[in-house]
């Protein structure tokens, strides 16, 4: 009986690691892709995979009777999965308020497709190489200098390494892509890394719950501010391209 439960647990960990590996591939896709709608799609798939990963933490929490906490764990990635494209559309076109307003949503999609990607001119091989280096760096940090405790430390390490890779690739996206929507996606990708680190490392229910609510607060606040700033800045500068904005900016020196 005990041997079978250990085997189930290790199978669960193996599935988790597979899902985490898929997060790496998706983040590579987000970095590599050359249009904003595809980057948004990649981001949504990543949020969906995170929702499945969060189930592995939510189920034991639910079994302990913490219904709100368990729901909260799954709800954050699901809400990002379902709402992000509409939220980004409303940031792009201030008049867009309702998800079923298809005409304005298509207008937003059209604008995203036109977004000028600086990296388009770069060789994709270079980006891939850079990404592999980022991932290697994260894995080396975690496996060589980050000691973890507990019974399943090897698998936990993989999760944390993926989380750090997501953070670094989010940062890279923000540095490399110069349109505002991609920068928001980069920031949200870092948020995904943070979320993964939380479900893999933070002890639940205490103090994990505090981290979860902090992350809700962070996500809501950041999105709120960005969706307030993006349309204003776009209106004043006439562009969503941060490179163009920077070139004509008076904020220098």
């Amino acid at each position, binding site marked *: 009986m005990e041997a079978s439960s250990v085997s189930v647990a290790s199978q669960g960990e193996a599935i988790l690691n597979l899902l985490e590996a898929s997060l790496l591939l998706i983040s590579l896709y987000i970095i590599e892709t050359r249009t904003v709608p595809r980057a948004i799609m990649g981001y949504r798939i990543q949020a969906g995979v995170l929702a499945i990963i969060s189930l592995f933490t939510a189920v034991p929490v639910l079994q302990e009777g913490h219904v709100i906490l368990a729901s909260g764990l799954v709800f954050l990635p699901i809400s990002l999965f379902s709402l992000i494209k509409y939220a980004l559309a409303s940031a792009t076109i201030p008049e867009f308020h309702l998800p079923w307003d298809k005409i304005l949503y298509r207008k937003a999609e059209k604008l995203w497709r036109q977004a000028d990607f600086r990296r388009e001119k770069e060789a994709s091989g270079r980006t891939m190489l850079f990404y592999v280096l980022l991932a290697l760096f994260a894995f080396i940090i975690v496996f060589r200098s980050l000691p973890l405790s507990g019974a399943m430390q090897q698998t936990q390490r993989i999760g944390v390494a993926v989380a750090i890779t997501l*953070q670094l690739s989010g940062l890279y996206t923000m540095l490399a892509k110069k349109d505002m929507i991609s920068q928001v996606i980069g920031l949200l990708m870092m948020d995904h890394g*943070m979320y993964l680190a939380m479900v893999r490392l933070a002890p639940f229910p205490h103090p994990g719950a505090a*981290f979860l609510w902090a992350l809700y607060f962070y996500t809501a606040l950041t999105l709120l501010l*960005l969706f307030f*700033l993006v349309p204003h800045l776009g209106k004043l500068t006439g562009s969503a391209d941060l490179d163009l*904005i920077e070139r004509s*900016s008076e904020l220098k*020196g």
Partner: protein
Amino acid sequence: MMDQMNSGVYSLIALPTFGVFCIAILWVFLRNNLSKGRWLQVISLGSVAISIITFIISTLLLGPLLNDQGAVKTVLLGIRLHIDALSLYFILVVNIIAAAASWNAHAYLQSPEGQKGFGGPALFLGLMNLFHATMLISVIVDNLVVLWIAIEATTIASALLVAYPNHRRSWEAAWKYVIITSTGIILALIGTIFLAHAVSSGSDTLIWSKLIEYTPKTQNEKSMIFLAFLFILVGYGTKAGLAPMHTWLPDAHSEAAPPVSALLSGVLLKASFYAILRYYTMTNVMLGESYHTLINTILLTVGLFSLVLAVPFILKRNRFKRVLAYHSLEHMGIILFGVGIGMPVALFGALLHVLNHAITKALMFLAYGNILRSYASAFGDKKLNDEDISGVLQAMPYTGMLLILGGLALVGTPPFNVFMSIWMILWGGFQRTLGLSENGTAGDVHIGFMIALIVFILSTTIIYFGMAHHLNKRVMGSASFGKKKLPESFISELAPLFVLAILIIIMGLWIYPSLAVLLNQSVAIVLHHTMP
């Protein structure tokens, strides 16, 4: 007595929060019944009253806390609060600058720029109160996640306040501010998760006053706690404006309205520094002597790097508010350098510098804000550029003198306050270089510290001349609109500046005894986690 102290602590947070609600309620019910000028007067006076009362309450807490209690521990809405000497010191810093800034805000909101800000004066003052409240919460909470939330919450109010002037530059600065600080702050949360994982011991895991008593059992735990500290340093360091994560700082500080710049530079950076200081204390106590030198070296290096990086930007031709913003980078570097020296006298100096820099920088931003407004009105329809500001001493003699005084103080001219704190930091540096222990016995000369001190002295000296050049250009000569004198309103514009200037002069010569006791206790808390 304890009940009275608890009430005092609650009212510290409640008052600015109450201010936000009051402004919102007044906006709904009173706005249409009053003239524009009267409406502005009502909400401005309300905000000034709130910040002054909050300041008085914090000074009233000073006596009992220093003499009898050591620390006030209480719970508000399920959140544990912990106020010791270090928290109270930061509360005082926040309240002094908030009072001066909200006083000056009235003059700013009367100007055409203040009137045309997005959302109007009511939103501006509501956000100022919210900003004040979140900074106070940051320095009194006992829970590390709530501390993170409070620091993150400062972003809501401050980002919108940066954008308030409602021109392209201010929106760009707000965007950069949100993007960079949000990126940084997430690293602080991941550091907190690492710490919680390393010390996981139930519900007390996140309470720093309990966590400090935790002794790591294995080397693995120690490595994890150290790694957590590094993430925290980068995360909160971003918000504290430390190099190389400082890139939001010159834009946000220079584009915000003057009272907001004073708050950003004077206290927002310090609230984030407070978070670093708490983690520094915890990490040192938990990890013991073996990591102490390494952590101090990291802080010293980051501090020195921030200071050195500020030099070329202060020397080059730049808009004056931007120059002042780079001075914030310099002074945060000086403060971190003082902590990194690891000697009590240097830490005393670094903590004193927190207040000295806040007061001096607030004076500079507010004075220059007054100048910009008056010159803009003298220029009329013609667009005012920063290069047009000259001959201030002739056109606005009182404000000009205050600007000179603030500028000289800011770069450490004796006998002003900043000189006093920099001298203490240097004294600690000399002690460390000569290997002097706390009881005065000499050891080996430390070449690394000597080089660091030389770089420190050289950088501050070069900065001195840079500031002198910028001041000379603005203050001397004659104004481009002729010899006409511009009006200077004593009550709304000059009064808060004079109060700050008096503090700058007095604190260069004398440290108020209760403040010295508060600082000594704070040093003991940071270095030994004990009361003297």
